[in-house]
């Protein structure tokens, strides 16, 4: 007889217990089970595993003891609206601010006089930030939502709301850095929201690169595959 650790793990995660506590609980139970088995063998018990299982507690008791501790629940379970709906846009805003501060700091450090052409590495940095901001950041935020939701065995409602919300908001969000590429030009950092021809394309790209991945992860997750 083997203790159904995987089932217990899935049950705890589905009930909203923080993955950190679930991981440690499983490790501690496995160690405890080994100690009980060794003790039963030393005592000459002919069925050490059964004895160890009985002393460890039934899977129901072990699950209930953890689930009843609401303080050990993950934020994703306690406040899914905050984690999936408000968290990613706030993170996006923070990344916007940090990118802007980074670019301003670099330009100030370089001491580029007005009207002078930016060095090629500065133009490359600005282009990289623009590209990352438009395509990489929204997809990365979507993948984070998908990973957190799958890890926590979440029902799909809040993760899907979060994925669509960040896909749309990141599609509208606009951060663009221009550096002077010819004499007399000036640099500019534009930050805000923009709905134009590109918006629909960007939203579609965001959703195409995140939603299928979320469903695939969810499908491959053993807990969901067993359902």
């Amino acid at each position, binding site marked *: 007889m083997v203790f159904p650790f995987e089932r217990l793990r899935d049950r705890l995660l589905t009930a909203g217990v923080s993955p950190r506590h679930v991981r*440690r609980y499983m*490790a501690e139970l496995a160690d*405890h089970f080994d100690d*009980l088995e060794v003790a039963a063998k030393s005592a000459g018990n002919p069925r050490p595993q059964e004895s160890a299982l009985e002393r*460890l*507690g039934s899977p129901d008791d072990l699950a209930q003891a953890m689930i009843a*501790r609401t303080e050990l629940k993950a934020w994703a379970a306690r406040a899914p609206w905050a984690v999936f709906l408000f968290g990613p846009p706030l993170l996006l805003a923070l990344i916007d601010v940090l990118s802007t501060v980074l670019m301003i700091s670099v330009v100030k450090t370089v001491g580029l006089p007005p009207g002078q052409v930016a060095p090629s590495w500065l133009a490359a940095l600005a282009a990289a930030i623009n590209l990352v901001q438009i395509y990489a950041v929204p997809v990365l935020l979507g993948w984070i939502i998908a990973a957190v939701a799958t890890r926590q065995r979440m029902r799909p409602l809040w993760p899907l709301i979060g994925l669509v919300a960040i896909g749309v908001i990141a599609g509208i969000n606009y951060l663009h850095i221009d550096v002077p590429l010819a004499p007399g030009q000036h640099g500019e950092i534009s930050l805000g929201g923009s709905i134009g021809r590109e918006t629909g394309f960007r939203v579609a790209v965001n959703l195409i690169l995140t939603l299928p991945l979320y469903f695939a992860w969810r499908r491959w997750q053993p807990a969901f595959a067993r359902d």
Partner: protein
Amino acid sequence: MPSRETNPSFMSGVPELLLLRLLQDNEMYGYELVQAVQAQTDAAITLGEGVIYPVLHALERDGALTSSRKTVNGRSRVYYRATELGAQRFADLKGNWSRITNAVSTVLRGAEHGFSV
């Protein structure tokens, strides 16, 4: 072998009290703690062995315990120890427990001497 049955409502808070007491002096891991409780109570109190971990995790989250992973004899284990906050919490729980047991004892002594309600 002692019965594994407990009265959950009456025993509420008792595991926490016992664990905090045992962890005042030594750092211990789960299996050690269960053995210590059984030894020190002469097996009068038998905790569900696996269910002590949620209590330990909750106490740690509240700052009453700290934990550290150590490898001893080739086995990696999580050791727990009470903090200052844990010592304070233990003192509070002990005070409450003493008041309750004194009150119950008073009632029982009254019953022995023909006290009626």
